[in-house]
């Protein structure tokens, strides 16, 4: 462990990065699909992804792509649901009526390995999906490495 000054500087820089990212993304593109910036800016976009009444301004970056065509999106669509729908379909409700260790260990490990990918894809707007996927895949492999080291008793 280094000295506490550099630790405080690193943690402050880490927080400032999120704040700067939020301010810059929200100023350039108020309708951005970036999860972190939406959450920090208390934006209504995150909770109204499929609503017709949007407060997003006309002619902003994501308006024409995501908001203007919302009236044509089918409600209750099963498209774009990804791995969540897959997991829900292979683990039906009646399986949860009891607690079994196989299922919940699997969910635990799937969540840990999938989290860096989810975060990376959520951090960036939808236009940068391939870039975010590369970072997320790296993070997932890194977490798999941490997990294996933990299982084998190497403790980081």
């Amino acid at each position, binding site marked *: 462990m280094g000295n506490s000054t550099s630790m405080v500087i*690193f*943690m402050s820089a*880490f927080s400032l990065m999120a704040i700067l990212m939020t301010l810059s993304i929200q100023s350039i593109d108020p309708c951005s699909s970036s999860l972190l910036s939406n*959450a920090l800016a208390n934006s209504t976009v995150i909770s109204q992804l499929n609503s017709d009444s949007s407060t997003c301004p006309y002619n902003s970056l994501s308006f024409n792509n995501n908001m203007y065509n919302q009236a044509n999106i089918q409600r209750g669509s099963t498209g774009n649901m990804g791995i969540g729908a897959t997991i829900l379909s292979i683990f039906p409700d009646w399986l*949860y*009526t009891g607690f079994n260790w196989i299922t919940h260990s699997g969910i635990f490990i799937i969540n840990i390995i999938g*989290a860096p990918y*989810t*975060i990376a894809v959520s951090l960036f707007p939808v236009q940068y999906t391939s870039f975010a996927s590369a970072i997320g895949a790296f993070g997932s492999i890194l977490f798999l490495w941490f997990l294996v080291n*933990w299982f084998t008793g190497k403790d980081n």
Partner: protein
Amino acid sequence: MIDVWTVFNQTGSFGIIIDSLTQHWTGSLHTTLIIILMCLLLVASFFHMPEILIIVPLIPVLLIFSTIDPGLQIVVALLSLFLGYILYSILPFR
């Protein structure tokens, strides 16, 4: 007419437990979730689990939940600071 089995099948064991703790003990959802989070961290520390494997998966979930329950925003902020501390401990440039 909603019967108890419909509710159970829609919420599951964890939903029932969280609801019960909120109604009969803590009084607010974010307090229940914070207590569960503390217990999770305690159990993980018993098994020498790396903190980053617990903290990182929780952040997107808590971000989503914090749009419903703003009381969780402070938890997200504290977890982010803790994540900064963990990354500082792991990364080689310190």
